[in-house]
Structures are given as C-alpha cells and as structure tokens.
C-alpha cells in the first residue's frame, strides 16, 4: 500500500510540475505579448499606414531605392550606422533599426527593392546593435570598471570593421535566395 502511495504521489507531483510549468510559460507569453509586442505593433502599424496613404512613402522610396537596392548602397548604410559616435545614438531599443526595417519591408513588398536584398539589408541596418548598451551589458557580465573603459571603444571600433563585413557575408550568402 505504501509503495502504491509513493508511486501515485510521484506521478501527481510530476504531472503537476509539468502543467504548472506550461501554465507559467503561457502566463509569461501573454505578459510579453501585451507589454512588448503589441505596443510595438501599434506603433509600426501607424507608421506603415502613414507611409502607404501619404506621399511620404514615395519620397522615402526614392532615397531607399538608391541605397538599399544594391550592395554598394547597403555598404554605405552599414558604415554610417557603425560610426562610433553615431552607433550609440542609433542603438536604443533598436527602434531605428525596426522602423527602417519596416520601411524596407514596405518597399520590398511594392517591388522597389529586389527580395534577395532582404538578407544583406538585415545586416546593413543593424551594425549599431547594442552599441548603446555596452557598459550595462558588460556590467551584467560582472566586468571590472577597467574592462568597461577598454571594452566600450573596442566594441565601437570593431563594428566599423565587422559592420560592412557582415553585409558582404550576407550578400554572398544571399545568392540563390528568392531567384
């Protein structure tokens, strides 16, 4: 009888644990959706509506077409985004990268930019990723103040090399994509 009880308790505990975990995962998900995803969707929807209805879209399209439609333009974009003074300013919340990404998406959808440029474009608009967050990120890794002092310029200068390089790699890797 005791053995049976033990088995039942073990099973019950196991099932309860799994269900509890799944339920908590669902709760976390809904929390994330409401707090992080929906607000940004609202913001992005407004921008897309504005771009599609007003003439702003056509003006942006002209500018973007020259830059995002070919590899040279994308390299220029990546170098600008990687300039050490600019990159920390462009970084916060990846808001700029997300807005530019959305604008590019609209132009790809309209056929202004060929779809195979999507992959290099993803890297071209993002060499500044995390450049605003270096001291905090290093602090999360329990870095010494001296490491932060060296780390901030090291990462910023590294981006100047690896930013354009990532665009080239992505461009090469995009051969055969959507064609």
């Amino acid at each position: 009888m005791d053995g049976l009880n033990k088995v039942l308790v073990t099973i019950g505990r196991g099932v309860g644990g799994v269900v509890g975990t799944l339920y908590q995962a669902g709760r976390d998900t809904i929390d994330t959706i409401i707090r992080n995803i929906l607000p940004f969707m609202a913001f992005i929807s407004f921008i897309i509506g504005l771009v599609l209805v007003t003439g702003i879209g056509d003006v942006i399209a002209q500018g973007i077409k020259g830059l995002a439609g070919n590899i040279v333009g994308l390299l220029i974009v990546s170098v600008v985004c990687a300039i050490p003074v600019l990159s920390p300013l462009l970084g916060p919340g990846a808001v700029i990268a997300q807005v530019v990404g959305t604008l590019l998406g609209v132009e790809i959808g309209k056929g202004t930019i060929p779809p195979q440029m999507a992959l290099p474009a993803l890297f071209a608009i993002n060499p500044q990723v995390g450049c605003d967050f270096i001291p905090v990120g290093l602090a999360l890794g329990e870095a010494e103040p001296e490491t932060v002092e060296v780390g901030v310029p090291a990462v910023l200068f590294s981006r100047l090399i690896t930013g354009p390089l990532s665009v080239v790699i992505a461009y090469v890797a995009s051969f055969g994509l959507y064609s």
Partner: protein
Amino acid sequence: MNIFTNAETVAEPTGVWGAIAGGAEYFISIFNRGGEVFFSLMGGILPTLVVLLTAVNALVRIIGTDKIENLGRKAAQPGLQWYPVRYMVLPFLAVFFLTNPMAYTMGRFLPERYKPAFYDSAVSYVHPITGLFPHANPGELFVYLGIAAGITTLGLGLGDLALRYLLVGLVVIFIRGIVTEWITARMLARKAA
C-alpha cells in the same frame, strides 16, 4: 471598422466645406490603413507567436538555465578550439535560453579580456535569432519582421530567409568576437605600457 465610409446615397459636399470634408476623410484614411495593418499583424503572426513563445518558454523552464553555466566555464579557456565555443555556441545558447538582456550575464564566467568580445558577439545575435526563435527578443522583433513582411507581401516563403539570417548571424558573431577580442587585447596592452 471604417469610420467615415462613403455611403454614396447623398451628393458629395462641394466647395470649401467639401474640401474640409475631403481632408477629414484623408486624415482618417491614414488610420484606417494603419488599423488594417494592425489587424493583419494580430491575425497573421500573433497567434503563431503566442503558441511558439509558450512552447519555448516551457522548454527553457524544463531544461533550466543552469546547464549552460557549465559551458560558460569551459568557454573561458584559452586555445584556438575554444573560439567557436566562446563566440558561436555560447552566445547562441545564452541568447536562446536567457534571452535579451540576461544573456550578457554569461560573460561573468569569462576572464576580463574576453568580456567585451563576448558581449559584442551575444548582442549581435539578438536579432538574427528572432527569425526562428522570437522568444529570445520579443521587444525588437520588427528588425526582422519588418523586412519579412515585404517578402510575405510578394507571396514568398520566409523559411529560407529566416534560416539564412540565423546562420549568417552565427558567422558574423564569430568574426565579431574574434575582431573585438583582438582590439581589446591591443588596447589593454597599450594601456599597460
């Protein structure tokens, strides 16, 4: 959903008032269009996202984040064979399991000279991973989703782009880690001199 839609049962207002009314319609059409986009996002990607996030969140909870801490300790070793571990495997697992921004806490297992490079490597992966695993950085999905929306509009599949983004991302963070480690080493040497 549309406010101010034309019923076409009465004549359109003309003159100054007509111009103002036209302006009002134009004004509201911006938000109608935005609303349509919002609705298509809610109906299109959100349901999938909810289920996917729940599944991955559960998986992360079941596996537990303590497992990758051991890898963090291993990645701290010098030697060529640990470069891919430090700047590819560890950032990937850290971003997958700990998500942005807690992924950067894995840097605490590494010696000081590797920390900037690891941060650079990990932070550069928080967007390439969202193509397939959006749970890792739910607040910044639109870098990928924005561009992906255009591909969807053209009626093309996203799997190819998402996978290539993920893989090219791995190559890029590997190179980024090596370059940043090298620059950090040089700056530390100059500082010590």
